[in-house]
């Protein structure tokens, strides 16, 4: 993401000349106070919001105008903030939708589902339930599972741990660590600063829609606290 300026309405900007770079095979974390534009940045990256200026590059290729439904085919995936399950489909069907791109190939789809079930055995238990009847945390897990069906290379994650029980939270972060080991590129937005920083290779912070600090985790950790204090002034 390079020099992106974006906003929802003509009269105000949510992102002002923001640049982010998610390094391949690394975990990049994006931090910032509430309303600083983190989720918006992810939306722009995924094509859900068209930037007013600036570019989005994937492996050096410009993809600024590629619509979101084509991003998955490029190997990107997004886990959005808030609730996004398909409430009236069963858990199994939700996952199948996650494998939409494999749709033609029934066997690959089945294999992908099995892989996800293997990773999250809980999902298997619920497979015949309507996703909408699950509890809040259960739904979050379904969303994570759904994202993983497509086996993406570049993963954008917005607040993965909200609403999850500590056991599961641990698993989720372990999972992210594992994804990184699998050489996937991860861009993580999280208010669970502590956990996120622990995983991060590189950190960006946003403030009022502008780039603020950035740096390697090591270089960063000491400054973090002062920074968070400064966010309080809004």
């Amino acid at each position, binding site marked *: 993401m390079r020099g992106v300026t974006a906003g929802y*309405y003509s009269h105000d900007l949510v992102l002002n000349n923001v640049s982010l770079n998610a390094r391949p095979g690394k975990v990049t974390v994006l931090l910032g106070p509430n309303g600083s534009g983190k989720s918006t940045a992810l*939306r722009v990256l995924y094509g*859900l919001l068209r930037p007013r200026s600036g570019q989005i590059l994937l492996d050096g290729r410009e993809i600024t105008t590629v619509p979101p439904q084509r991003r998955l085919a490029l190997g990107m995936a997004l886990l959005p903030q808030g609730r996004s399950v398909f409430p009236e489909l069963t858990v199994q069907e939700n996952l199948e939708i996650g494998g939409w791109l494999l749709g033609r190939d029934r066997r690959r789809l089945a294999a992908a589902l099995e892989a996800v079930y293997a990773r999250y055995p809980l999902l298997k238990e619920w497979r015949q339930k309507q996703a909408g009847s699950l509890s809040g945390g259960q739904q979050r897990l379904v969303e994570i599972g759904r994202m993983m069906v497509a086996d993406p290379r570049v993963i954008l994650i917005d607040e993965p741990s909200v609403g999850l029980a500590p056991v599961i939270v641990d698993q989720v972060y372990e999972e992210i660590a594992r994804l990184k080991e699998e050489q996937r590129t991860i861009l993580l937005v999280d208010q669970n600063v502590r956990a996120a920083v622990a995983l991060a290779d590189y950190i960006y912070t946003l403030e009022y829609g502008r780039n603020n600090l950035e740096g390697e985790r090591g270089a960063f950790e000491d400054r973090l606290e002062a920074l968070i204090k400064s966010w309080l002034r809004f």
Partner: protein
Amino acid sequence: MGAAAAVGLLAVLGVLIPLDWVTTLSAVFMYILLAESWNILGGYAGYLNFGMVTFFGVGAYTAGVLCTQYNVHPLLTIPLAGVMATVVALLVGVPALRLRGVYFAILTLIISFLTQVLVTNLDITGGASGIYMPSLPFDPFTNEQIFYYAFLGLMLLAVLLAFIIERSRFGYALVAIREDEDPAEILGVHTTWLKTQALLLGAFLAGVAGAIYAFHTSYIEPQGTFSLDISIDVVLMSLVGGLGTWQGPVIGVPLMLVTAQVLRILAGELPFLGSTIPPEFDRVVFGIILILVALLAPYGVMGLVRRVRGRRLTV
């Protein structure tokens, strides 16, 4: 200031303009009245009532029956018609308002059909043959003016009411119901009661409108008085103007009624590319206008004016 000037102008117009315009404007006022009444529940609370004609028709028939069968004084029948429509709204609304979304819409639609069938089969309502209303003992011009001012006054009342509601906690709570009903109730909004109030208020006004309409047309029969067209027009006019704003009906109704009337009158008179337009062409033009309005002003004219902002993306 501007509002006072507009009201003054309308009041003066009643005696200045030619009679057919007096009639047309009366119809405009009546529909604004109906649309504002509809808007309280439909626009603010998002409960689309597709059976507004039920209350209108009940009002008309209450006036008709009381006046011709029981010799009640015409002026007295008008408030009674409002009361009767409110009673019907209470009977219908209390169960119906438990339903949401399309289920509510369809229920109100069926109920308007039901009332129509009932009125067609009752003796007291004159069945399919309808009721001839007594006419007022004035010359046609005075007659029209009386109705002009009656509808004008009621319309102003309804607009004022909507204006007040829109700025009150009552209004906010109605919008909250439209946006997300369960949390609204959990936050302490007595949703059923508020919806019922909104419905009853609208029904009363519609009933009064129906009664005046009955005296104005001097002949009521079930097909026309309970016509689905009225229900649909009220909804569309509010949509064109902009849902859930007090200005919506004030803009939407004249826009649609006057356009329709002008097109109807122009059709067949205007030469078009050398040949005359066939009279039915006005319908096509009217449809295209509707489509354009929807494309250019997806939230109605008021949406354009206010630039009401889109819903948040769901992700």
